[in-house]
């Protein structure tokens, strides 16, 4: 170490002269440490960087707040009992959105009814049965890629397979199956997380008592994982409820004169209704409040379900 230089920088600082006579030894020791100015700069850099990180997080929170604020601000006046309980009237410039709410409900619940059993069973295989190897890798690759398929491609797939090839037509069934295919990776992911959270000692205790693997899964693992699976289900429903592109060609239509009576009927849906009113309605400006109102109903529905799931999940995590 070059002591001379370090000491000279030390003496340039105002307080370094004070103990010069009595504590030569301590100066020699201190000289090995970086100078105060350097320390201050490091602190400054850290402060600036942390400020930047905080700012980034703030921007995200702000974005969420701004979007929700403007939707609430524009939409709350449109919402009343008539709006929620009546079908649209006068070429969709008056009246309510009841058929859209019901349509979205049918589609998302239908989708989860199909995707949940398949998703949970897949997760059980991946987490309980499968051994590491090429097969597992392949299945995981399939799930990851399915999760990455664009929503509009799911729409094309649903059109080609369910609507045309199976001949279901534009219907609740086609839409729900398309949405089910899309939400499958979400369900598998959250179920796997729930299964992983079950301690291995539970399994070992059950197996030790002479239960078979299936008995262990059915009687011990699944009941313990049930709350986690339920959370995933809520998230899956909310995801399916908000999707537009997959149902554009498979289930949703501009307008239906009556409520659907069977799973082979076409439906109106909240997201598609917003899109139609905002881009292709007869009078886009005059229905602005209806657009905001519909968007607000959709947001409340989706964010409400998500909030419930998030709160429930953090409650569960704290308990474990």
């Amino acid at each position, binding site marked *: 170490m070059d002591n001379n230089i370090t000491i000279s920088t030390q003496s340039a600082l105002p307080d370094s002269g004070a103990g010069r006579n009595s504590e030569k030894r301590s100066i020699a020791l201190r000289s090995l440490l970086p100078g105060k100015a350097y320390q201050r700069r*490091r*602190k400054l850099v*850290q402060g600036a*960087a*942390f400020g930047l*990180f905080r*700012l*980034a*997080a703030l921007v*995200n*929170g702000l974005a969420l707040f701004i*979007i929700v604020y403007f*939707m609430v601000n524009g939409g709350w006046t449109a919402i009343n009992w008539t709006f929620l309980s009546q079908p649209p009237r006068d070429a969709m410039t008056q009246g309510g959105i009841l058929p859209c709410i019901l349509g979205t409900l049918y589609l998302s619940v239908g989708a989860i009814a199909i995707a949940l059993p*398949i998703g949970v*069973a*897949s997760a059980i*295989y*991946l987490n309980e*049965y*499968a051994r590491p190897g090429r097969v597992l890798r392949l*299945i995981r*690759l*399939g*799930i*990851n*890629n*399915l999760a*990455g*398929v*664009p*929503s*509009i*491609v*799911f*729409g*094309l*797939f649903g059109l*080609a397979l369910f609507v045309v090839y199976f001949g279901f037509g534009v219907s609740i069934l086609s839409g729900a199956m398309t949405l089910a295919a899309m939400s*499958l990776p979400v369900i598998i992911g959250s179920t796997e997380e729930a299964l992983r959270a079950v301690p291995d000692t539970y399994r070992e205790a059950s197996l030790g008592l002479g239960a*078979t*693997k*299936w008995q262990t899964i059915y009687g011990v693992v699944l009941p313990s994982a049930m709350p986690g699976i339920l959370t995933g289900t809520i*998230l899956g429903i909310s*995801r399916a409820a*908000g999707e*537009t*592109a997959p149902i*554009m*060609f498979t289930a949703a239509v501009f307008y239906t004169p009556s409520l659907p009576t069977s799973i082979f009927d076409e439906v109106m849906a909240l*997201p598609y209704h*917003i*899109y139609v009113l*905002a881009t292709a309605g007869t009078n886009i400006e005059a229905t602005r409040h209806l*657009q905001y109102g519909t*968007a607000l109903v*959709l*947001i409340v529905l*989706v*964010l409400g379900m998500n909030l419930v799931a*998030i709160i429930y999940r953090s409650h569960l995590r704290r308990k474990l």
Partner: protein
Amino acid sequence: MANPRQQIERTMNVFFFVVASASITILLLIMLFLFSEGLPTFTFVSVKDFLFGIYWYPTSDPPDFGIFPLIVASVSVTILSAMMSIPLGVLTAVYLSEIATPRVGEIVKPAVELLASLPSVVIGFFGMVLVAPFLQTVFDLPTGLNLFNASLMLAFMSIPTICSISEDALHSVPTALREASLALGATQFETTLRVVLPAALSGISTAVILGMSRAIGETMVVLMVAGGAAMVPGSIFDPVRPMPASIASEMAEAPFRGEHYYALFATGIVLFLFTLLFNIVADYIQHRFKQVGEATL
């Protein structure tokens, strides 16, 4: 030999395996139907003219099926949105994982998750009725529905993906590494920058790629906000027509199994291949540069 219990076990094993392969079956079905409905396109237009033709006039007579402007639109929207979402997403992840106190984290994390759960059509609607007029007056543009607006909206859709996967990667960096760095006298920021971030780099790269894959495949936002002009953009304030927007807006009018219908499915193939590529690269990075434990770092 096999008693009933063993038989049930064997049956269940096979049953779960069959169900678990549903995902891959669906993926294969998607490919099968995309290709069977899309490949007939190449009987009336060559692959080269389809991919690199700069005129997309599917309804004029004779029609032009060149999706080059659509591909350029998709790629430019994705890149521009990535320039906004990568810094924001990664910095937020670092904040959540390294700096935030648990109490603050418990507020910020759900906020990011809720941002992810906002339906795309709502974000598109927001961009259309509020951001577009704003951009139009601020930058004095002919239309606020353009490449920049779409990228901005897409950025906020891909931030949650980038943020949550990056955060997982940062969390999995062993605490011992941080402690070692701090013990050597590094500040918390130096530790984050020089030790934690490099250790989590493969996970963060995966996050970035998946975020971009989400942006390129997103439909409703680009359908409502990008402007819809099938031209190669000259500036970031030009209206564009990315591939998903083209498929979504034209499929309803395309005559069933006509040339236009096939061409839209072929566009779907191109889009699918783009996201497939993104996902395979992400998967490769994840496995090739897997952070196994402290010893391998």
